[in-house]
């Protein structure tokens, strides 16, 4: 039997066919898929054996006298809900917080945010906060929709790619590969990245700029475009608003003046600006390099400014492509698992919340909830007493993990639902064993807004249950859900709750998926957004002044550290580190240091160095390389034994509340 489902790793959402011939299963890319056209990366081919790890959670566990004890589902669910209820009774609904997961399905995210809101709180958030919350907020502000404007296949019509803050071939390998094949055909490529990534090596122009100076870089490119008259005037006149205020701001950013900030010589800025201005359509791909800053939302809006300035929206080959990290970041955000948005990006304080009061037949909270990091702070302050967390591992992945630890240790009730005993789950009072995405049914929405069907391939281990089932049982016991029969049942409600999903059904999204909005107007879905108008009428230019990152170098902390992932590991390693081949390829943490810097500091390849920030320190092996610019170091965040997030401070973007994972001032001590 060959089962068609979606790869559980990144937001590209490659469709995989798992063919079980006998005991061993073959994984192949689905050749009809418009997403991956039969191709896969190493994680798709060799990354799925975590599913069979003997370490999978098989039974509900409760911590008694510091030790986990096996209990029945009945006991676990009753204990969890009884305690939640008494906390709500004693301290009010805002004493409870929910952390959903971009690894879970749309149906599950929908259920968790609904649970939070029916309990009476908007304290619902998930890891999209730490990756693409600036995208949702920024692009909704400028364009009216927080999502990629085109499709992966539309990149075939692109003439120039601008990739900023994305190591695409490592993090969205199949999209990266698409760029590689297009460049082989002669398409132009500009890469803006402090690291010399594989795409940077293939690029016509590599702008190796200083971390955190994105706005200065983008503004100076736009300065040249306007100065040299390369903007798309008819697009600006007919489709946008706010141009003159924006232009006035940008005119403060001549490349000659910006070089001192970005480190990029003016001639290179001009070259890039001329390429963007002349070789259209241009597609702009970005990822965490843009968003994980205290100016993350402004960075996103400045990307949007550039697309609007050059008329690169609404046509095949053009557009803005925020590349989603987790497989279902787009979907979990669409479902409203965010503290400021109800499903379909309805703001907590909007009149449209009335609609959900009717749909769910309940009075709903109208105040902004806590973001991920705020939840832990509130827990440390004693304001949040209980957290119900599904499929996340914040003790590894959140910024300023010492604060996260403090918060968790202060909780009266910490419920964790996961497929493994993660570092975070180890601190829980109650652990609920969930199934992996290879063992359940539902939908994921990929980085190009494509809603795709997830199908069960394997039987669940032990007594582990699907997340939707657990949420449903919890909701019933809390007296807030009348009960759902199946993921399909939940999806039917999503269709009513989220306008862009209204036309999607389990039947019509199989096997190829459909891109939202899918509705009466667009029954086949929508490949390219904003072709004739924007959801907000005219798109908005937003002037974005440059501001320094939260941390700057000084005499003591004289290096900038940026954090991120590598090709083989995935986030906190819960899956990838239990996958033999992936873990073999990247078995341990490292710090990338430029050759020149290493020489000066007398650091040899593979020797240990201490990396110390103003917040903490780690000891880690040096990887001396030319791929990173002098003055900058890179550390991946996958490794629990070397938690780089001990070094990341708690400064967040004021608009999106995303922490600044990408700019940390550090000192290297050999």
């Amino acid at each position: 039997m060959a089962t068609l489902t979606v790869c559980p790793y990144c937001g590209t959402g490659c469709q995989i066919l798992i063919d079980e011939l006998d005991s061993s299963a073959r994984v192949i890319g689905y050749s009809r898929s418009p997403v991956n056209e039969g191709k896969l990366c190493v994680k798709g081919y060799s990354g799925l054996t975590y599913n069979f790890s003997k370490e999978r959670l098989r039974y509900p566990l409760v911590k008694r006298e510091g030790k986990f004890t096996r209990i029945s589902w009945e006991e676990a669910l009753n204990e969890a809900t009884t305690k939640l209820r008494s906390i709500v009774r004693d301290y009010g609904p805002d004493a409870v917080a929910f952390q959903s997961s971009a690894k879970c399905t749309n149906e599950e995210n929908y259920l968790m945010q609904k649970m939070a809101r029916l309990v009476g709180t908007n304290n619902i958030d998930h890891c999209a906060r730490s990756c693409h919350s600036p995208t949702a907020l920024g692009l909704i502000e400028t364009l009216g929709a927080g999502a990629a404007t085109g499709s992966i296949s539309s990149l075939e019509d692109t003439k120039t790619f601008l990739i900023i803050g994305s190591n695409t071939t490592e993090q969205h390998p199949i999209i990266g590969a698409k760029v590689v094949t297009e460049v082989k055909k002669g398409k132009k490529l500009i890469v803006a990245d402090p690291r010399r990534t594989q795409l940077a090596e293939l690029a016509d122009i590599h702008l190796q700029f200083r971390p955190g100076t994105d706005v200065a870089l983008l503004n100076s490119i736009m300065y040249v475009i306007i100065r040299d008259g390369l903007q798309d005037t008819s697009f600006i006149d007919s489709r946008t608003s706010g141009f003159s205020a924006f232009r006035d701001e940008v005119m403060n950013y001549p490349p000659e003046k910006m070089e001192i900030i970005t480190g990029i010589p003016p001639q290179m800025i001009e070259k890039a600006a001329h390429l963007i201005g002349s070789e259209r359509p241009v597609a702009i791909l970005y990822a965490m390099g843009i968003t994980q800053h205290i100016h993350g939302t402004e960075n996103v809006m400045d990307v949007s400014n550039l697309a609007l300035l050059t008329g690169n929206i609404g046509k095949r080959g053009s557009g803005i492509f925020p590349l989603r990290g987790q497989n279902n970041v787009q979907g979990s955000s669409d479902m409203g698992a965010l503290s400021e948005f109800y499903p379909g990006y309805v703001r907590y304080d909007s009149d449209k919340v009335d609609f959900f009061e009717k749909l769910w037949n309940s009075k709903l909270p109208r105040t902004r909830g806590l973001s991920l990091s705020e939840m832990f702070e509130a827990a440390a302050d004693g304001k949040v007493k209980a957290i119900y967390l599904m499929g996340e591992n914040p003790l590894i992945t959140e910024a300023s993990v010492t604060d996260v630890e403090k918060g968790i240790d202060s909780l009266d009730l910490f419920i964790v639902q996961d497929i493994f005993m993660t570092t975070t789950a180890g601190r829980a009072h109650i652990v609920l064993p969930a199934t992996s995405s290879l063992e359940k049914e539902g939908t994921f929405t990929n980085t190009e807004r494509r809603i795709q069907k997830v199908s069960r391939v394997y039987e669940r281990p032990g007594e582990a249950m699907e997340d939707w089932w657990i949420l449903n049982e919890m909701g019933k016991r809390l007296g807030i859900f009348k009960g759902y029969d199946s993921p399909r049942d939940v999806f039917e409600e999503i269709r009513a709750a989220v306008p862009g999903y209204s036309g999607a059904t389990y039947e019509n999204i199989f096997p190829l998926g459909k891109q939202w909005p899918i509705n009466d107007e667009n029954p086949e879905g929508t490949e390219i957004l904003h072709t004739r108008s924007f959801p907000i009428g005219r798109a908005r230019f937003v002037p974005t002044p440059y501001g320094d990152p939260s941390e700057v170098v000084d005499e003591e902390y004289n290096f900038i550290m940026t954090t991120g992932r590598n090709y083989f590991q995935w986030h906190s390693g819960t899956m990838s580190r239990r996958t033999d081949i992936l873990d073999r390829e990247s078995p341990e943490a490292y710090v990338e240091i430029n050759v020149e810097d290493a020489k000066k500091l007398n650091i040899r390849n593979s020797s240990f160095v201490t990396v110390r920030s103003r917040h903490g320190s780690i000891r880690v092996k040096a990887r001396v390389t030319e791929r990173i610019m002098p003055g900058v170091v890179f550390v991946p965040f996958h490794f629990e034994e070397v938690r780089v997030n001990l070094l990341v401070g708690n400064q967040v973007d004021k608009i999106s509340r995303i922490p600044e994972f990408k700019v940390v001032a550090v000192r290297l001590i050999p």
Partner: protein
Amino acid sequence: MINVLNAREMEDLFSRLRKDYETFGAVEENGEVVFDKISRFSEVSEKKSRYAPKEFLISRNENVLSTPDTTRKAVFGIKSCDLKGFYIMDKQILGKDPFYTAKRNNTLFVNFVCTEQCAGGFCSTFGGPLLEEYQIQVVRDGENYYVLSSDEFSKYLDGFKEADLSRVDEMMSKFKEMSPPLNVEGIENRIKWNSILWKNFASECISCGACNYSCPTCYCFDLYDRDDERLREWDSCILGGFTSTSAGNVRNSLDERLRQRFYHKFVYYKKSRGEYLCTGCNRCVDDCPVEIDIKEVITHDYQSE
């Protein structure tokens, strides 16, 4: 022996084989040709399968602390290029790898011979698509199925109408006329260690391993322990951790590893086993996300470099 059968007689042949074997075949599911259990010959798809069904002999994952599977299986619809992979592999691992050997000896492949070249394929370069070594080989000509059987299996064809090879030969020469072989002869001497090709490939390669996993002649595996199991899993020589030593991989950079793959295919195996480790199936090209083409390794003008 060569016989000619019609569709109904093919069902009869299938029934005869089904008495002795568990039957599998290339079938279409979700628009993709995969391998699955079948109970009738008519279920078999004649289209090129999505992948070379290596797992009939080398499992994707396998516990080597177990006894080899000796179920007798018959696999219908495997293409000549994919089957040829096993005959080439035999020279290296048959009789040495107990799992492979047990399955090889208990599996009957009924291969389908293409009469038109698939997109990108170049099997005629390696003598395809009609195989010299086979168990039961089928060439379809409209309503007629020409069935070639080796001595061991000709008993299953008893009573069916005998034929000669002339029509098959005719079809094969037409095939070769339409898609002439590439000039692979002597590549083991022409190929260049310092060719620019390897660096070019490395600049594009995303190390996914597809070329290995899709290849009907790649047989390397990784070995690791998982609790009470010792598992071997398909591996990829493109990855840095492949054949790692205490000093790491002796081929530290990606271009060296890519070169090793092609040298293994076109130089070392040829010199040590007398054959190229390639069947012209084009699967590594089909599955490569960045369109690296093994044909370029054959046709590249090394001399002018």
